[in-house]
């Protein structure tokens, strides 16, 4: 380990266990502009020779420790998969982008038909790939979050208060995501996006356990219904809101999560154990994708495939739009 910062005993153990199991070296870096959740730059994803965990410079104590614990756990899952069965991530190609964009477009058309104020065509077309990438990013991260957090909660008691704070912050942030696009994004996708986070937070609220993590806390519209009877809620047409629908879909996704996350979170550390966590994450991802009918949108590939796909993103978008709209689409639009 390369670092000159003070660390608690349990964190030093987590780091040395990670290094020993994966036969690798970890470098810890403080950066003022680092993402609040920290960043992991690992040898299994990038073409580099050492693993680096970057965290915000103002995280000096237990907040820093939690970021390290979280990223080490994720690294162990990735590394164990790489050493055992092969590490894959959700990527995309021209065909899958085309399938995804076509589906979003059809759903957007249904929504637009009901709207009084229509979205300009150019904006609608631009939105397709933005939404596609948003879901790609979320589904590539979300299933691993409960896995990593449940493991840390069980194995590192000392970090529980810190973990609760970070999760509260994350939960609020994720529920706020897309809010500025609520009236533009097709209802189905707004609901599915919120449902994923709702299910994740509900799972964490039950697993950790903490009432403070209940996702309804972060749904602004719920506040309107404080102290109201169910009957009164129904008369305000609550059932037709995106938030109510998110709750219903979220409850269904929670059932999926609970079914797949039936894991011994306290097991001793071993490569086999972390490789099994990876398989759990892959199965959960597939189950969520099936539920959202997005299975053909993405493909499991080596991380290098995804890095290359990111480089080709604009090309894939252009090709997909040509496939959907044919000659109807002007070059200026794509």
């Amino acid at each position: 380990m390369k670092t000159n910062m003070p660390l608690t005993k349990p964190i030093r153990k987590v780091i040395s266990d990670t290094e020993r199991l994966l036969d690798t070296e970890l470098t810890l870096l403080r950066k003022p502009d680092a993402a609040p959740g920290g960043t992991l730059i690992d040898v299994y994803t990038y073409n580099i020779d050492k693993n680096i965990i970057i965290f915000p410079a103002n995280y000096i104590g237990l907040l820093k420790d939690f970021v390290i614990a979280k990223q080490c756990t994720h690294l162990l899952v990735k590394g164990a998969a790489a050493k055992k069965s092969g590490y894959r991530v959700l990527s995309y190609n021209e065909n899958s982008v085309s399938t995804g964009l076509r589906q979003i477009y059809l759903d957007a058309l249904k929504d637009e038909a009901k709207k009084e104020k229509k979205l300009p065509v150019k904006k609608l077309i631009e939105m397709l790939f933005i939404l596609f990438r948003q879901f790609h990013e979320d589904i590539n991260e979300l299933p691993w979050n409960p896995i990593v957090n449940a493991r840390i909660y069980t194995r590192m008691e000392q970090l529980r208060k810190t973990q609760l704070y970070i999760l509260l912050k994350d939960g609020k942030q994720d529920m706020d995501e897309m809010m500025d696009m609520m009236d533009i994004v097709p209802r189905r996708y707004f609901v599915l996006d919120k449902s994923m986070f709702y299910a994740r937070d509900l799972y964490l609220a039950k697993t950790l356990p903490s009432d403070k993590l209940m996702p309804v806390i972060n749904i602004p519209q719920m506040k309107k219904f404080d102290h109201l009877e169910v009957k009164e809620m129904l008369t305000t047409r609550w059932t037709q809101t995106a938030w109510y629908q998110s709750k219903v879909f979220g409850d269904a996704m929670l059932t999926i999560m609970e079914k797949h996350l039936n894991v011994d979170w306290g097991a001793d550390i071993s490569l086999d154990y972390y490789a099994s966590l990876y398989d759990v994450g892959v199965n959960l991802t597939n189950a969520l994708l099936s539920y959202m009918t997005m299975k053909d949108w993405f493909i499991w590939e080596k991380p290098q495939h995804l890095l290359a796909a990111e480089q080709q993103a604009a090309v894939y978008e252009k090709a997909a739009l040509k496939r959907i709209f044919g000659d109807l689409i002007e070059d200026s639009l794509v």
Partner: protein
Amino acid sequence: MPVSEVPRLLKRAELYVRQTKYREALVLYDEAIRLEPKNADGWCHRAAAKIEMERYADAVADCDHAILLNQNYADAWSKKGLALYQLGQYVQALAAATRAVALNANDATAWYVKGICLEETGKSEEAEIAYAKSLELEILLDIKDEKNRVRK
């Protein structure tokens, strides 16, 4: 260079520290201390730069200078605690961190170092209290940072 230049030198050095250019910062701190050896800030800030450069024994010496000039210099006690911890001198580090938090109860780093030193010296329950205090302060700082980020 006149003594009146010292505040400007310290400011420039701090900018270098923020850019993790510790060598450049050290040159300016050396100059500031030469011009005004009785300025405790110069010694304390140089100690901080030396900690970043992993020159822990030198950092302790600089902290001691700062403390000699101002016995109640909380930040110098805090830095001394951190440097001593890095040298593995947990009992002395604990004493310095304890003094730091007595002088400034809002120093999250000092509480954290105190916690680690208590843990190292087998006082786990007391360590928990120090960690809790450190976390409380860190969260307050984080919330403040978040608000600033949103404002920007």
